[in-house]
């Protein structure tokens, strides 16, 4: 058994943001029949997730819709508060619900939303959005210069031309760049990018991804890249985490996870992804056997949450939740939470 927080082989990176046992349960409104009973039901959106973001590294988080990816991002940015678990920023425990502490936190951890069409207020100009971000974080010493720098950094040049524009006057890619610029205005160390390109056209996605990669390289940001497109995770991330039903089920080096997927769910995911190189009609074993619906997060299956859909499910899977087991060659940091690998690592 390998602690998933063990530094990667490269070893040159230092941990910026770390979450241990991160859990978020959203209370569900009780039904009349339950008013008398003690039990309070909850959507267990995120359950015991461990996560490490390192300086200058991109960590991708993939998983199907509703598996709790956005919730993780919102927890890390303190927009919502964890039910349990601990978040540390440079080894300091973060507890910033509102006010100055919250501001201090968001100065260092910034969130970029999925939908650039919705995350910019349609009534404000680019200048307003960026100025506010700079002001709030007291980086408005030389405002004009600051604005120019930001826009240049996200390749919106010449900057003057974009400052006066309203969001609807920009294309989707340009908007997402503005959103990223706004996040950068705080001078963060961590960028949480929640599906930053899923709403963008194929031909402009790449530009935004390349921009993020560039920021990682030049500003040494720690980036959490959330997506459900596992191919782009492979392309872009140093490390990949796979989420299923509120839990991280597999993690490790990007190439390892995508090419030598261990967890049956990851395999299903990869088999399901459209792949032009696959000959039509050819079906991988996993994809063919995959059936059923994603589980309810209110009443998740006992044991391994994937077991009702898993082609390799064993008796043990439905009773005991699997811990993480190292897979592949040691040192790649590749692990999976699956009983299939119970013997492999430890």
């Amino acid at each position, binding site marked *: 058994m390998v602690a998933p927080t063990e530094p990667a082989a490269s070893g040159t990176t230092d941990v910026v943001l770390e979450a241990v046992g991160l859990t978020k349960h959203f209370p569900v409104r009780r039904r009349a029949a339950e008013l008398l009973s003690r039990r309070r039901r909850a959507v267990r959106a995120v359950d015991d997730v461990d996560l490490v973001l390192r300086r200058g590294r991109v960590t991708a988080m993939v998983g*199907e*819709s509703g598996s709790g990816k956005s919730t993780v991002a919102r927890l890390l940015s303190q927009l919502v508060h964890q039910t349990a678990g601990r978040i540390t920023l440079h080894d300091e425990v973060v507890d910033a619900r509102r006010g100055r502490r919250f501001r201090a936190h968001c100065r260092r951890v910034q969130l970029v939303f999925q939908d650039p069409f919705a995350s910019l207020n349609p009534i404000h100009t680019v200048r307003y959005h960026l100025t506010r971000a700079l002001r709030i974080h007291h980086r408005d010493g030389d405002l004009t210069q600051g604005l120019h720098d930001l826009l240049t950094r996200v390749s919106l040049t010449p900057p003057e031309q974009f400052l006066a524009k309203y969001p609807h006057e920009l*294309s*989707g*890619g*340009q908007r997402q760049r503005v959103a990223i610029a706004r996040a950068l205005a705080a001078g963060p160390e961590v960028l949480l990018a929640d599906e930053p390109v899923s709403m963008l*056209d*194929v*031909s*402009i*996605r*790449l*530009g935004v991804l*390349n921009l993020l990669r560039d920021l990682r390289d030049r500003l040494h940001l720690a980036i959490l890249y959330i997506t*459900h*497109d*596992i*191919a*782009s995770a*492979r*392309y*872009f991330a140093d490390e990949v985490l796979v989420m299923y039903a509120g839990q991280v089920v597999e993690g490790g080096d990007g190439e390892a996870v*995508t*090419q030598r997927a261990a967890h049956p769910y990851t395999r*299903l*995911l*990869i*088999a*399901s*992804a*459209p*792949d*032009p*190189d*696959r000959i*039509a*009609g050819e*079906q991988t074993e996993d*994809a*063919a056997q*995959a*059936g059923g*619906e*994603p589980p309810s997060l209110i009443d998740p299956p006992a044991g391994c949450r994937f077991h009702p859909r898993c082609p390799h499910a064993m008796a043990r899977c439905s009773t005991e939740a699997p811990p993480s087991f190292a897979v592949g060659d040691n040192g790649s940091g590749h692990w999976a939470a699956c009983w299939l690998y119970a013997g492999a690592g430890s």
Partner: protein
Amino acid sequence: MSGEPVLDIRGLSVDYGLGDAAVHAVRDVSLTLHRGEVLGLAGESGSGKSTLAYGMLRLLPPPGVVRSGQVFYHPGDDEPVELMSLSAKRLRRFRWAEVAIVFQGAMNSLNPVHTVATQLTDVIAAHEPRTTPAARRARAVELLTLVGINADRLGSFPHQLSGGMRQRVMIAMALALEPRVVVMDEPTTALDVVMQRQILAKLVELRERIGFSVLFITHDLSLLVEFSDRIAIMYGGRIVEDAPAGQLYRDSLHPYSDGLLHSFPALRGPRRELTGIPGSPPDLRAMPSGCAFHPRCPKAFDPCAERTPTLLAPDGREDQNRTVACWLHTADRAMT
């Protein structure tokens, strides 16, 4: 693959609005869907894919108007029907019985206040008024089973179903009258990949069993390459390339198709070089002159900015059953 045509679009132009204010969303598009074929229609957002699909069925909401063009439906043994000149009454009888359509968002395509059963039987009642309610219900059960949904879901309302189930209900509904053509407008974009594959697998299976043709619209080119027989690429309201899927994937001719294919990362194999397409999509209100793609085209040359290329078989490959609208490949004939 290419049998006789079922749906033949000739020079279709569709506008939003009238007169000077009109936006020309689809411009002089010709496209043929053959019997039993899956024809993929790709292109980025706003390129006019949906407009083309709805326009040919005359389902565009105001202010959409069909400016010109014809759409022939070949029922096989009978005379072809021209959709643009059909009366409202005949059009209503034609729809769904011959061409069914699955819309982009299933949540929005299902009426939230009626049960699945009502919406399924509705369509049977409208086209086969003589069937008994019991027979309709039986058919509805049959259809749901076909797409892998338990019959006890008949009484559910749309909001009680998951996204994937809703989409499958829509597919079941589309097959209710055993149409010869099913149009699918991004049927899976809102779903995650696992569900997407499940549904497409189902579709492939059903097509083999029932034998209808599919017009499949999406901007996910990798999906199309895997699933369709032939692919047409749209840009700026026009079809810029139309070729068998494999050929297009391996050997795209139009620089835009090429760019698209180099915009998404591959999941397997060596990490491909990703170039993407610089620039941003054109504004339909102020379309560039000549080839609409020329401002973004790395290979643009003299004629591109001046003259609009027509969709023709590429030079030297007239036998390959493919067409492209690009001066690079059709220069010879068009220029002369």
